């Protein structure tokens, strides 16, 4: 179990990162699934079994990835809303199981990457009005997020040991089947596997 103290701004950012209403980001590949379904109809008609198996396998891989991502986000969201707020010192105390802390690190690293890309894009965007008025694009929002994510990562870094990170990552990769994976996330604290 890890304990991490987060300030209000950091907490707000994390809640919005894992908020289920924003899960649409996880569903980008669903359109691809529909394409596969259409091809499937074609092969089902002429009983091309090897092709059918291959297409179902493709679907399965995409869906399992979606399910695991959903589950990671959902579980982390639950951890966040259970965090206790210390009124006097104005911080949230996040109590998080080791395997979930590793997932948190992974998600924040990806989010940080996205923010940096968005920031660079915004910086380089040539906005006509800005150009006329010799103004620069406002990237302060992205910079703020970048700083907050980095500061959260620093806090978790102090708590997680490198070999622990490696072990948990390996276990997460090994849990291929959805039910086994969900049990691993739900299960006790896996500090010394």
């Amino acid at each position, binding site marked *: 179990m890890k304990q991490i103290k987060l300030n209000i701004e950091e907490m707000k950012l994390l809640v919005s990162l894992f*908020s*289920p*209403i924003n*899960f*649409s980001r996880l*569903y980008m590949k*669903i*359109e691809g*699934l*529909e394409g596969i379904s259409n091809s499937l109809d074609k092969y*089902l008609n002429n*009983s091309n*079994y090897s092709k*059918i*198996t291959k297409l*179902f396998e493709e*679907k*399965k891989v995409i*869906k*399992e990835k*979606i*399910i695991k991502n*959903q*589950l990671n*986000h*959902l579980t982390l*969201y*639950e951890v966040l*809303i*259970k965090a206790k707020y210390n009124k006097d010192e104005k911080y949230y105390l996040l109590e998080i199981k080791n395997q979930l802390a590793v997932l948190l690190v992974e998600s924040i690293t990806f989010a940080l990457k996205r923010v940096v890309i968005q920031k660079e894009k915004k910086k380089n965007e040539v906005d006509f009005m800005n150009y006329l008025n010799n103004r620069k694009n406002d990237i302060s929002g992205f910079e703020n997020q970048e700083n907050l994510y980095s500061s959260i990562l620093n806090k978790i870094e102090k708590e997680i040991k490198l070999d622990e990170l490696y072990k948990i990552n390996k276990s997460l990769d090994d849990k291929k*089947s*959805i*039910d086994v994976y*969900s049990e691993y996330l739900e299960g006790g604290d896996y500090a010394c596997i």
Partner: protein
Amino acid sequence: MRVFKDIYNINIDKKENSILLDIFLNNKINIYNNYKHFKKDSKAEEISRKGAGEKLHFTAALDLLIKEDNVTNIIIKKQQAKGSILEILVKSRSERKDKETIKITLPGILIYELYLFLTENILFLEDLIKNADDDVASKNKAIKNKEIIEILKDINNKIYKEVSLKNLYEMKVDYVNLKLKEYLDLCLQEP
């Protein structure tokens, strides 16, 4: 489809809200049970299939592939629905911290999922009570579960009142025909 897009309001009190949150956060009814059953079934199927003719082999194997595809669809749907409802419950509570009644606003699809979820939990708890052991601790637990069942039934009644039986029935029929993408879009709409 219309019934899933419509927005419904339900007023619940603080106690009902905490019970709901508690059940959602510590859910005993596992979303992945279907998947586990599927895995068991498919193993049995594989054993019985040995020695069967080529034609049978193909249809049986195809049947399994389609089943697995459906089971994974259900997991994706249920996980999104669970997350969306949870978020709405948390937000509604924090918006009305000082008030006794909490208004929750849900689109049709989520109110239907909430109704399914409550009903499944009621059945699950009733089953627990029926099979409870005869010692003091189990009896106390059964009494507590009975109280929870009553609260869940009250919330379910509020849903009936708001949605009407006719709409609920329409939802039941449309629910099975919802495609994955349609379903997710419905869950992700801002109420």
